[in-house]
């Protein structure tokens, strides 16, 4: 990450935070608003961060993955389904149901990733089409099962959605969470905190371990890697599946941490925005996380402006329209991809099947 990119990220976030501060200043102190914005930003950036990490594992090893959206959607559904099933049996211990849900979600992500690996590595299908297959299948399967199980007379649960175990409770980190006012920032739920930890872990794995070196070698120059005895196919399979686990955890965020229900197509393009974050972050974990925060800030802006709706002055009436403010993350993504904000370099063998 060069300084220019960080400067742009900082500038965009300052503008978005500033807007909310200007609007809400008559009701709350700027410090409280900024703290609340920061906490929301970090939380809503979670699926983007995990999606971007998923992309990094896949693409650093040379496999393009645009199926992250579908992987997250599938994981969100099956994780939620598992937590509900568990809850009908062990409703005294919601934590048990929730953790089972997270586990199933991660596993679902891994299974979808395995399909992607089989398609793109073994069968050498065009990787972008392979990802599209995942997206279409995930939309179809979750839509079908959602209706089959919960709606209509013949459905499994007889037309009602059973009680869900709720959402994962936020964790009180000693010391950090006790800081006055700012402590709110560290008062986060477990998947959000895991995402932050995984950013650090991924950075370490990718740049300071033998595994990471081999992964990058396979993604940059598979033939050279093969010559020195690295198993290209195996490295790619494993990295794509690890990426699937990341996307699965990101999917769990939607139905087990953010809200406790499932809606068809609820991932709403986050998987694609995560890819843009990965590209903007130049395929590095910290860069991708910073980019995910920009999108998170755009979303936090939308949420907080809704909160201060009545306070918006007539001169800024456009900010009252959630459809208009909602455009921000998508337009940002496009601007980033145009390369207006510096050039990025993809791994050299990204998207190319390896022919021995």
């Amino acid at each position, binding site marked *: 990450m060069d300084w220019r990119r960080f400067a742009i990220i900082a500038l965009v976030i300052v503008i978005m935070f500033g807007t909310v501060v200007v609007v809400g200043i008559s009701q709350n102190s700027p410090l409280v608003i900024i703290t609340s914005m920061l906490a929301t930003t970090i939380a809503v950036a979670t699926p983007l961060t995990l999606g971007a990490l998923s992309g990094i594992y896949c693409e650093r090893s040379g496999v393009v993955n645009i199926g992250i959206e579908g992987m997250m959607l599938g994981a969100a559904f099956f994780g939620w389904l598992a937590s509900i099933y568990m809850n009908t049996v062990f409703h005294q211990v919601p934590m048990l149901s929730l953790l089972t849900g997270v586990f199933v979600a991660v596993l679902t992500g891994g299974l979808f990733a395995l399909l992607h690996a089989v398609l793109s590595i073994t069968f050498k*299908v065009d990787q*972008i089409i392979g990802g599209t297959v995942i997206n*279409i299948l995930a939309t179809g399967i979750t839509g079908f099962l959602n209706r089959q199980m919960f709606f209509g007379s*013949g459905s499994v649960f007889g037309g009602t959605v059973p009680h869900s175990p709720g959402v994962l409770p936020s964790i009180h980190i000693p010391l950090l969470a006790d800081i006055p006012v700012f402590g709110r920032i560290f008062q986060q739920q477990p998947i959000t905190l895991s995402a932050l930890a995984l950013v650090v872990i991924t950075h370490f794995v990718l740049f300071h371990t033998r595994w990471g070196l081999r992964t990058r070698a396979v993604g940059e120059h598979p033939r050279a890697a093969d010559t020195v005895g690295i198993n290209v196919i195996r490295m790619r399979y494993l990295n794509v599946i690890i990426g699937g686990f990341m996307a699965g955890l990101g999917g769990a965020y939607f139905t087990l941490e953010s809200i406790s229900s499932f809606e068809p197509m609820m991932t709403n393009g986050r998987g694609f925005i995560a*890819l843009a974050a990965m590209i903007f972050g130049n395929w590095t974990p910290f860069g991708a996380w910073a980019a995910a925060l920009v999108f998170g800030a755009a979303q936090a802006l939308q949420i907080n402006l809704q909160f201060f709706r009545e306070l918006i002055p007539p001169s800024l009436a456009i900010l009252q329209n959630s459809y208009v403010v909602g455009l921000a993350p*998508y337009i940002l993504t496009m601007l980033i991809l145009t390369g207006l904000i510096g050039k990025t370099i993809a791994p050299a063998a990204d*998207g190319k099947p390896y022919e021995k």
Partner: protein
Amino acid sequence: MQNIDGQIPVKKLRDLLNPLLVPLLAIFTAMVAGGIIIAIVGGNPFAAYWGLVQGSFGSAAALSETAVWATPYIFAGLAVAVAFKGGLFNIGAEGQLAFGAVMAALIGYALPGWLHIDLPAYIHIPLTVGLGMLAGAIWAAIPGALKAYTGGHEVINTIMMNYIALNITSFLLNGPMRDPDPLNLSARTPEIAASARIPTIFPDLRVHWGFVLALLVAVIIWWLLWKTTMGFEIRTVGANPDAAKYAGINVKRTIVITMAISGALAGLAGAIEVTALNYRHELGFSVGYGFDSIAIALLGKTNPFGVVLAAILFGAMRNGGTRMQFMTQIPVDIISVIQGLILLFVAADAIIRFIYRIRVREERVVLTRGWGG
């Protein structure tokens, strides 16, 4: 042992059937897999598929509805196919279709009022449909230009344009373009004027002249791609942009034109739905067309006539799915699963070749390239 006399006809027949073999086996395999899923969730797959067939081909009304469903699929499938021919992956058909529909609705209901005259149908219909196409073309040309001049990948940009289109459409249909009828509770436009409506072919059936237009457009696209210089340039850029550049083709311009044609076809899909079927645009109607059209283009092997066949199949499945749900309580969403599986087996034809032990190798078509473009 084969004798010399028998060999030639056998080979000819095989040449004719070969391109159809893998798609047909893919459809068959996906139907079997779908049947297994239906059985697992406690349904009777035979009853379900019988309902599907009856609902899509069982009567004149069923056939008419299949054609009605197939019409936007043909246009949108052609849109994706043309982009594929030019080496571009247009995932944004949904947004382009929505914009075409919004524009057609606007011209359809508002233009006579703006001009203070009653337009004759032979002016109003072409104007409505044409401007709908233009809206789709512009919406697709933006990511096309970004691809050509800045290298921004069209896959992500067209998806972003989908979400932007959805937000803008939501804004318009809830605000300036909302149907002012006091009984109206949904986000939709007013009905278009009678002079902007494309008539039906038969008095009692819903099938309209838009279906005939779709077949005609498929022929035009085939002619454009294989009989004109522009088509040659599009295919050359799609096959090998470097070679195209050395041959003196303006690659950047061709990319923008390809995307514009693709978007115009998607916009046409939306415009025809408004002018020939719904007579208005309603929020949510365009959802799902984007991915369906990709599946149709791939199943049709990006050939215009293949696209028509694939679109009719998908139209029949969507149409018959409603009757299937009515008769057997199997949710209509199973159709999406089956379509996903069809796409899976068409894209990974190696799986099909493996299952059915097909030895013949077809030429591998390169459809898209990685981020580097």
